[in-house]
């Protein structure tokens, strides 16, 4: 059996580990566009602020590829797929044949149209190389504008802030972190970060990057102008579908996969940020570009590629974010209100910034937000995943001591008295 994996991040590593559990002999080849062993992508912003070393970012031990007999092609990107011949053409002018193919090409940064994009000092931030490049250019920089107040934007802003830079975040929506928090959560973060010295502008967007050859400022839709030495585009990612063009692989926003992570083509699987897979809460197929799901999908794809049977029960949004010492964890449906038919319970814990929110769809818990007091939030992730039903006294979820003990005893026994 001959396995080929395009991409070399979480999904790829998950797949390799799963394949090797079933198939010790088959050949595994990985085409890695980036010239690095698998690294922890979310840490590129910490790297920016020297909070982590390059070595410290490695996702697996150095011997990982050797131990798993993986032929790793660094700096080689896939160009096209010929599903009939079962070969992939690559940037090194070679053709790689496969019996089973995994596409885990991840995402590529979204760059919105605006004037002045051709200048120096404008960066996207998705790869270690980009992080390195930014770091190089940071010398002497005093002010940076980060476009996008989502997860990547805020992490980038944090990294720069930690590096001693004055950061201005420009967000199109009326609040930051709007995909992972509700209004209250966003406003807690906004005021916290402003207190820490970050500038945050919402309901506005950059229409032009000004400067001669190099970016020296931005012009906003509100006509406001901000002086800066660098602009970082951190709006988000979209599935990187370049390689599958013309291959016949079915896509919408991402590559459509079934619950075995297989595409519409036999022997071709996809996993990670590039996929549009089952979403548990909406019942539709969605792009859930988050690390845990990427790894898990990789693991499931790998198992199925190696002849096993593993079913993806669907994912849903889950996020953990810490910015300048304030942490939040949220899961499932977070921005819901009683207006759209949900039951919402909110409260706070001991901490100054503490905020808790739980969202119920009738009796079923479908989401939650934790700010500052995030310990034990995973219990809610588990309950959302299980579509746990809460009949009465939903307020108990707000209790500081909330735990498994507050849930159904029979359910608890089933979890705690046998292996899970």
């Amino acid at each position, binding site marked *: 059996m001959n396995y080929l994996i395009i991409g070399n991040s*979480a999904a790829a590593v*998950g797949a390799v580990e799963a394949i090797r559990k079933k198939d010790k002999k088959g050949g595994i080849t990985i085409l890695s566009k980036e010239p690095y062993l698998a690294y*922890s*992508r*979310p*840490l590129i912003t*910490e790297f920016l602020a020297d*909070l*982590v070393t390059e070595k*410290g*970012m*490695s*996702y*697996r*031990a150095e011997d990982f590829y050797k131990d798993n007999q993986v032929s790793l092609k660094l700096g080689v990107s896939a160009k096209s797929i010929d599903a009939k011949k079962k070969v992939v053409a690559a940037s090194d002018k070679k053709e790689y044949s496969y019996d089973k193919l995994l596409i885990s090409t991840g995402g590529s940064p979204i760059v919105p149209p605006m004037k002045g994009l051709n200048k120096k000092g404008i960066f996207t931030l998705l790869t270690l190389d980009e992080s390195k490049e930014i770091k190089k250019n940071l010398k002497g920089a005093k002010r940076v504008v980060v476009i996008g107040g989502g997860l990547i934007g805020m992490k980038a802003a944090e990294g720069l802030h930690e590096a001693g830079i004055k950061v201005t975040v420009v967000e199109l929506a009326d609040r930051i972190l709007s995909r992972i928090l509700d209004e209250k959560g966003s406003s807690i973060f906004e005021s916290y970060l402003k207190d820490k010295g970050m500038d945050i502008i919402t309901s506005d967007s950059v229409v032009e990057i000004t400067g001669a050859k190099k970016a020296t400022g931005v012009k906003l839709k509100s006509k406001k102008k901000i002086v800066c030495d660098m602009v970082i585009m951190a709006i988000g990612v979209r599935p990187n579908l370049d390689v599958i063009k013309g291959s016949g692989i079915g896509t919408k926003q991402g590559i459509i996969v079934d619950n075995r992570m297989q595409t519409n083509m036999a022997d071709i699987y996809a996993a990670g940020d590039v996929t549009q897979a089952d979403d548990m809460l909406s019942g539709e197929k969605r792009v859930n570009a988050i*690390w*845990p*799901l990427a*790894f*898990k999908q990789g*693991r499931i794809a790998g198992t199925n590629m190696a002849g096993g049977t593993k079913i993806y029960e669907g994912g849903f949004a*889950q*996020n*953990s974010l*810490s910015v300048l*010492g304030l*942490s939040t*964890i949220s*899961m499932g449906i977070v921005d819901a209100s009683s207006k759209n038919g949900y039951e919402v319970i909110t409260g706070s814990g001991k901490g100054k910034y503490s905020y808790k929110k739980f969202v119920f769809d009738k009796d079923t818990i479908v989401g939650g937000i934790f700010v500052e007091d*995030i*310990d*034990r*939030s*995973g*219990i809610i*992730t*588990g*309950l959302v*995943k299980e579509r746990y039903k809460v009949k009465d006294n939903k307020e108990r979820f707000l209790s500081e*001591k909330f*735990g*498994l*003990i*507050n849930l159904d*005893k029979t359910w*608890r*026994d089933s*979890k*705690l*008295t*046998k*292996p*899970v």
Partner: protein
Amino acid sequence: MKRVYPKEDACINCKLCEVACLVEHSETKDIFKAYRDVPRTLSKALVEEDGPNSISIQCRHCTDAPCIDACITGAMQRQDDESPVIVDREKCVGCWMCIMACPYGAIQMDVRKKDKHKVSSKCDLCPGRTMPACVEICPNRALFFEDRG
């Protein structure tokens, strides 16, 4: 593999499991020193209580551990299916993805503001011991260390 299983009906909320765990994971393993340490080592066992009911919760060392899936650095690892899930404190950067993922709430933040040290803290089944400290100390047989298949 052998795992720690709580028996709720026998848990008397004394929290000696927490004491023993803290001491076992402290640098000196000396109860007096361990409690004077600043910051104090965290207990990886957590006794939950609700009225008269209580139960000691530790990492379940899940077969398909969601914390391993979620870990962005590879710090959360296990050697093989029969081994405990262990967090490599050197690799962990404190992103709390594991806390987000753990359906038992069995992972905690271990944060020291002073030196920006932040790592996840969880049960490692007490390497080097034949029986985890929490199980050994439990005075009412509310914790079992068994292979239940």
